């Protein structure tokens, strides 16, 4: 693989070292987990993951942790992602697209406000009295 030189990496290392030391101890403002089972991958989870990486890159965000996980058992609602803002309950988002995850990133991950219309389990049942 050409071009990725040791110099490039050394430069980044110097530039980001300062930022990383702030973060030691795992102080993330939020965690985003993309479900990457066979079902998720077939439905487009990789696109979701890459859209999130682009958001981190373009907005230069250092305190959001991006992870993958396996199948959560809701294969028909993939692609799915779980957003966990520090100190709050995790929220699962379903039937994702690149557009939806960008909106979720902006509103929930950065803004702290759950995007209810894309979340799992809201408005799916009615209670009859």
């Amino acid at each position: 693989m050409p071009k990725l030189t040791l110099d490039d990496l050394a430069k980044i290392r110097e530039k980001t070292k300062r930022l990383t030391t702030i973060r030691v101890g795992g102080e993330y403002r939020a965690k985003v987990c993309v479900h990457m089972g066979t079902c998720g991958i077939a439905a487009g989870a990789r696109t979701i993951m890459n859209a999130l990486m682009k958001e981190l890159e373009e907005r230069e965000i250092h305190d959001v942790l991006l992870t993958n996980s396996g199948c959560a058992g809701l294969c028909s609602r993939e692609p799915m992602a779980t957003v966990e803002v520090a100190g709050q309950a995790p929220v699962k988002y379903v039937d994702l697209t690149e557009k939806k995850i960008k909106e979720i990133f902006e509103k929930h991950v950065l803004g702290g406000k759950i995007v209810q219309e894309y979340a799992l389990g809201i408005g799916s049942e009615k209670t009859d009295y």
Partner: protein
Amino acid sequence: MEDLSLHILDIAENSIEAQATTIEIRLEENRRQDLLTLEIIDNGRGMDKKMVKQAADPFVTTKKTRRVGLGLPLLAEAARAANGRLDLESKPGKGTRVRATFQLSHIDLKPIGDIAQTLITLIVGYPAVDIVYVHKVNDSECRLDTKEIKSQLDGVPLQSPEVLKIIRTHIKEGLDQFKEAK
């Protein structure tokens, strides 16, 4: 799965599930023999003989969230459709090697797809796992080893925006150049 790069991501997820710390992905295009070979080799917990036999059965899975396991059966089907086959070798405690072969010129061979996206997804999603990627076309080879990148970064996380950007563009450019040169 639309293309082979998605199959690769899927099979590598199995390796991660099996607690592999190193995953080697090898893609070899041998145009003289009209043969494409994909290998995914991990050092995960491995499988015993019985499990190896069952692994290609879609109704067998180790997962508890659902009752079907389609990753390997789908890859086996993709290989069969292109006049190839799937082979599994595994030893408990040692690891697993998945090998799929395809006829390169076969009309039903799936496109290779976006390898860069697959690699970066694995690299960022599982920073503790080392990924080695080797792509061979006839006699020339291109290689990526995350161990080398990580040792240079000296503790700076792979998820830093700066690192992400440089790794993404370099993997993509590197692969594109390699493809063009061929």
